[in-house]
């Protein structure tokens, strides 16, 4: 009897907790529900303002958006056991969806890896890609970029006990692990021909060989390395970033209206502190909060 009462209490508590969460979300989002008391958010009015025929209008009309992101990148886009990705990229995606009047249920997350991002945008598998996606000229020929919304830079991770590598100049003659087919691999091959580049499938797979001494360093964007170093006292990030990797939001080529609108949204959230809040709740837990980068309306 007693245990049953306990169980009932538990269920009641859980229900309350769940209900509480639901309410909280609504209060945060406050976009789909055109309740009269949601006066401080102007989204419902905005959704009707999208120019006819624009991508924004089409997405707002459909109430759904498909966003490509990384599923294996700590701090930026990492899928937990529940199948929902979390991280800074994901937060940016949520904010953009919110501005379109699309709530969390209307967002479909699709995993994009380095190699398939352009293809997914070109063939319409995804509406936008927010996936630690470096803006560069070769990619600009295929798709358009809004942003950047963050500036990363390639850096080096070694064992804390390895003092020999203090920066990129010490990479000559060492074995450096990175991801096969990634931009960091490209940089290493092009700029550090004396280093042996060892490509693996994901960055986390580089850690075991690093600890075993099979590779001397892991190199990729500083934010990814910082995530690993924060989790493991054996690892340390060395030196300052030696490349500039502006992360942009990929969208269909020449959809200038949509791009300008996303850029406006980015500038708006830089101003009102939403960007900073999104950073601090994700990557900001292990990294200092930077100044938001200037949007590049090329």
């Amino acid at each position, binding site marked *: 009897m007693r245990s049953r009462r306990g169980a009932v209490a538990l269920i009641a508590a859980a229900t309350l907790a769940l209900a509480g969460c639901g309410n909280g979300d609504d209060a945060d989002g406050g976009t789909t529900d055109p309740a009269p008391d949601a006066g401080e958010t102007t989204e419902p009015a905005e959704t009707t303002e999208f120019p006819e025929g624009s991508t924004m209008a089409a997405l707002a009309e459909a109430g759904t958006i498909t966003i490509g992101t990384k599923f294996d990148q700590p701090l930026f886009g990492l899928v937990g056991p529940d199948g929902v990705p979390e991280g800074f990229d994901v937060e940016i995606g949520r904010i953009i969806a919110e501005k379109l009047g699309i709530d969390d249920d209307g967002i479909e997350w699709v995993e994009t890896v380095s190699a398939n991002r352009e293809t997914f945008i070109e063939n319409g598998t995804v509406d936008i890609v927010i996936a630690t996606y470096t803006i560069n000229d070769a990619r600009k020929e295929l798709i358009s970029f809004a942003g950047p919304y963050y500036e990363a830079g390639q850096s080096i991770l070694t064992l804390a006990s390895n003092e020999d590598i203090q920066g990129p100049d010490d990479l000559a003659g060492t074995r450096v692990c990175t991801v096969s087919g990634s931009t960091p691999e490209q940089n290493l*091959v092009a700029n550090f021909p004396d280093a042996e580049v060892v490509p693996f499938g994901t960055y986390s797979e580089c850690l*075991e060989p690093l600890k075993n001494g099979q590779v001397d360093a892991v190199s990729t964007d500083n934010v990814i390395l910082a995530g690993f170093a924060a989790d493991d006292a054996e690892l340390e990030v060395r030196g300052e970033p030696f490349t500039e990797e502006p992360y942009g939001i990929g969208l269909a080529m020449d959809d200038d209206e949509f791009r300008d609108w996303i850029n406006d949204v980015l500038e708006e959230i830089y101003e009102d502190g939403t960007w900073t809040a999104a950073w601090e709740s994700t990557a900001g837990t292990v990294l200092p909060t930077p100044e938001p980068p200037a949007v590049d309306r090329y």
Partner: protein
Amino acid sequence: MDVIADNLPAYLQGFSLTLRLTLYAGGLALAIGLVLAAMRVSPLRPMRGFAATYVELLRNTPLTLVFFFIILVAPRFGVLLPLDFIGFAVVALTLYTAAFVCEAIRSGINSVGIGQAEAARAIGLTFGQTLNQVILPQAFRTVIPPLINVFIALAKNTSVAAGFGVVDLMGTGRRLATANPGGVTWVLVGVALGYLVITITLGAIAAQVERKVAFTR
């Protein structure tokens, strides 16, 4: 198209590594598979048991997992082979392919009439002599087509190594695809052509050997 021509040296380097992986792993897998097949038909129960367990374990495990186990898991238990990543790839591919080679050879052994083995034993040949001098030479004919299948699969399976520290044909393709986002299709066509060169050659060799050892039934 130009992407392939412009990056020919990179392709050749990747191709040569893929070819080497295929040859090394193929040779080793043939040797180990032969021993395993002999164990599977041996009169000793523990040997049969060991070989059967090995085959079932390796044959039914995805190749990626074999790589994972050797490179990322085994070192955690203190098993770290003194090899580079090409060496690890050869070990993983060999262990995996040996299971298939074993089964291909065993099918050949089983195709030789039981009377052959009985006759050989009746005239006093040992198990080893029976296998080497009577059964295997006859089994060889039947084994060639399935064995070539196994080696063609191996040639393509080497591409898994591209995710484990080896810049083979597939790894080269990934690099080129990143460098030429606009030419990804042609980059991959180039990669596919590289594999075709190996696999079609293997098929041609098989046809030759089959013709050589054929006999009129």
